[in-house]
């Protein structure tokens, strides 16, 4: 049985249910693109959780640091205003005691004498133990003198270190053919060796 059809219907019948399998690489590229979309979609969906929390944390941190700076300045000022200043001479050195007395006199005429603790500190000195002590594996340190009053003798705290002085000598050797000339520049002596 033959069925008369319009051209449009003929082509519709031909193409409407037509299926052509595409290459597998198409899905791979779609999936690749989807990963990117999924990421941005996730970011957008989680905006309230991540972005808002980070904004809150950042603003809290900035407020805290601002308040902290403000309080620090205030307390510092208050300390300066309220702290009793007293120059106290505890160092048995004439110059220091004089200067302390002078300061007291200058700054606080008639008032209760201000006290300043003048503590003597000394820089740490590292000395290799090889040449000084039997205990060769350690470095020797001078004991820290922080918070120790200067009236204590430094010799009492640390025994003096005696380092042997080696005689200074500078030798210049000049080789000239078979002659070795040794010149001691310090003693200004010229020796010749054959």
């Amino acid at each position: 049985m033959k069925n008369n059809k319009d051209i449009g219907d003929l082509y519709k019948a031909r193409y409407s249910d037509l299926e052509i399998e595409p290459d597998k690489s198409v899905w791979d590229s779609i999936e690749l693109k989807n990963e990117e979309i999924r990421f941005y979609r996730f970011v957008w969906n989680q905006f309230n959780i991540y972005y808002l929390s980070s904004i809150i944390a950042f603003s809290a941190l900035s407020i805290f640091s601002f308040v902290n700076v403000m309080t620090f300045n205030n307390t510092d000022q208050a300390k300066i205003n309220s702290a009793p200043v007293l120059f106290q001479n505890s160092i048995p050195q004439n110059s220091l005691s004089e200067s302390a007395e002078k300061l007291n006199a200058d700054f606080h005429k008639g008032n209760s004498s201000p006290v300043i603790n003048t503590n003597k500190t000394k820089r740490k000195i590292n000395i290799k133990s090889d040449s000084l002590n039997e205990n060769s594996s350690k470095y020797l340190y001078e004991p820290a003198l922080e918070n120790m009053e200067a009236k204590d003798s430094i010799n009492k705290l640390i025994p003096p270190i005696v380092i042997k002085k080696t005689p200074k000598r500078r030798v210049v050797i000049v080789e000239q053919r078979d002659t070795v000339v040794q010149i001691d520049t310090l003693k200004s002596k010229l020796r010749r060796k054959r």
Partner: protein
Amino acid sequence: MLNEKELIDGCKKYNRVAQKVLYTKYSAKMYAVCIRYLKNKEEAEDLLQDGFIKVFININKYSSTGSLEGWIRRVIVNVVLNHLLKKKRYKLESIENHKNNYDGDAGYSSQIEHSYTFENSFGVEESEFTKPELDKALDQVPEVYSLVFNLFHIDDLTHSEIATLLSIDEATSRTRLFRAKKILQQYLIEIREKKRYREQLS
């Protein structure tokens, strides 16, 4: 196996499995659509990819009133048409070059009138032409006309929809459809005559 509702819900949540199932289900049909418009394998694959990405992004806009396949087909067709409009390929082929293929511009109303009589008079038998013959005949039609023919007869778009999509008048859409059919008719008659001649010889 996911049913259509689960599939849509999964795709709305950007579920990878649901997306894969959706692609597997409709990719072959949509690739055929792309091939029909573009006739180039690589270009069709690129647009199939773009189309499905657009489907996955815009699936929230799909209302369950129509069929999912129809909606996907419409998205793919839109992507293909946008691509063609960007390339302005269909505009490159001047309509003037094909004036000799028909009776000429005798006026819009007379053409439409003629087209209806032509449609009624030219009946073709379903089994008369093979699939390659139909493809070959459609390939002979200039793209400006075959585009409207495809949209109207195969993708079931109305003339107003075609006019909107292609940024043309409805009247132009009708005229292009008529011309496409006329050219197809000529080629199909030619093929039929050749077949009959061969049969007589044998």
